[in-house]
C-alpha cells in the first residue's frame, strides 16, 4: 500500500470505505458491543495508517491482512476485559498470511461470493464443529478452555476443529470448481 508510505489521507479514506464495514462487522461480532467495536476499529485502522508500509503484498490480500489486525485487536480487548492473557500474536498471523496458497485463496473467497457461500458452509457444519470454531475464532478461547467449557476431552475439541475447517475448506474449493 504505497499510499500509506506517502501518508495520503484521501487514499486512506478510500481504504476505510472499502474495508471499514467488514472490519466493524467482525469487531461487533467478537465484542458484541457497538461502542467497543468502534474503539477497536479506530485503534486498528489508526495502527494500519501508522504502520501500513509494513504490509507485504506477497503475503496475501489487503483485506485479509486488515481483518486479521481487526480480529487481533478485538480478541485482545475481549481477553483484557475478561482478565485472560493475550494469546494469538502477530507472528502467528504472519505465518498464516505467508502461506503460498494466499493468492489462490483470495480468488477462492471472491469466487465463492464471500459471505453467502461461507455462511452456507458454516451453517452446514454439525453444530458441535461450528461451535468450537466459533468459540476459537470469534471468542478467542484456547482449545483447553473450550474443552473445559463444553466438558469434552481436549482431543475431541481438536478433532472437531480440524473436521470443521476441512469441511469449510472443501466448500471453498468446490466454489472454485
Amino acid at each position, binding site marked *: 500500500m504505497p499510499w500509506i508510505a506517502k*501518508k495520503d489521507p484521501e487514499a486512506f*479514506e478510500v481504504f*476505510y*470505505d472499502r474495508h*471499514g*464495514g*467488514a472490519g*466493524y*462487522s*467482525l469487531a461487533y*461480532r467478537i465484542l458484541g458491543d457497538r461502542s467497543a*467495536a*468502534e474503539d477497536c*476499529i*479506530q*485503534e486498528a485502522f*489508526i*495502527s494500519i*495508517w*501508522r*504502520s501500513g508500509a509494513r504490509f507485504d503484498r506477497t503475503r496475501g490480500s489487503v483485506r*485479509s491482512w486488515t*481483518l486479521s489486525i*481487526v*480480529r487481533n485487536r478485538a*480478541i485482545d*480487548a475481549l481477553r*483484557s476485559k475478561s*482478565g485472560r*492473557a*493475550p*494469546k494469538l500474536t502477530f*507472528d*502467528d498471523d504472519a*505465518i*498464516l498470511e505467508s502461506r503460498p*496458497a*494466499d493468492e489462490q*485463496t483470495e480468488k477462492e*473467497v471472491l469466487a465463492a461470493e*464471500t*459471505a453467502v457461500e*461461507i455462511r452456507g458452509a*458454516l451453517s452446514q457444519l454439525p453444530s458441535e464443529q461450528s461451535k468450537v*470454531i466459533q468459540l476459537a*475464532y470469534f471468542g478467542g478461547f*484456547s*482449545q*483447553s478452555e473450550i474443552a473445559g467449557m463444553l466438558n469434552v476431552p481436549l*482431543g475431541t*475439541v*481438536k*478433532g472437531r*476443529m*480440524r473436521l470443521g*475447517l*476441512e469441511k*469449510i*475448506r472443501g466448500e*471453498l474449493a468446490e466454489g472454485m470448481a
Partner: protein
Amino acid sequence: MSADQHDRRLEEVAAFALGALDAAQIEDFREHLAGCKRCQDELNWLAPAVRALPEAVEQQSPPPELKVRLMEEVRADVAAAAEQTRAAERRERASSRKGFREWLGGLDIGGLTWKPLAGMAAVILIVAAGVGYLVGNGDGTNVHTTEVPQPNGIVAEVINEDGKGELRLTGVEQLPKGKVLEAWVARGEAVEPVEMLFTPDEEGNATTQIEDLEGVDAVMVTREPTGGTKVPTTEPFVEVPLES
C-alpha cells in the same frame, strides 16, 4: 518423532490456524511447523478456511461518526508529522546535538518537557544495570530482560529477543474511558510511537509488543486518547532506559 506423535501434531494444525493453541504450546508448535512439510501442507490447506471466517459475519454498518473521528485523527497525524519535520529542521540548524542523558534532562516535544524525569532516570539507569540479564533460550536466540521499578508501584520489564521487544507492566491503574496506553521508543533525540496500543487488564497488567528495539535508548509509556497519538501529549509515567 514417531508416527503417533506426529499425528498428534497434525491434530493441532487446525487449532493453531484458529489461534486456539494454548499459550504454552505455541512456541513449541511453531518450531515443529518450521521443519515439518506435512504440517505446513496441512496449514496451507486449512488457512483459507480460517481467512474466510470473517466473511461469514453478518454485515453491520459502522456509524458515520466513526469515520469522522478516524479521519480527524489521521489529519492530526499528518499535521503533527509536518510539525515534527519542521522541528527537526530547526534542531539541525541549531546543530547542537544532545547526548541521551542531556536529552532526558530537557527534551522538548511539542511543548512537553520531561525534565521531572531526569533525576528519576538517573536512578533507574543504575537500577536497570542491576536487574538486566541475558539468557539463551535454547534455540539460538538471545533474550535480554531489563526490569525497572517505576513510581507508584509500577514495575516495567522490557524483554529484548533478538531485537524484537515486549514491554510488560504490572501495577498499572485502570484507565479512564477514552484513554489507552501508548509506548514510545527513544533513539538519540528521536522519539517514535510504538504501533501497538495497549490497556491494563483487571489486575493492572499491561503488555505491548515493540517491533524493533535496535538502537533504542529508552522505552517510555504515556496515557493517550483512544487511537493513540503521533507525539506524546502527557509526561511519561514509565521510563525504562536500555543499554544500546
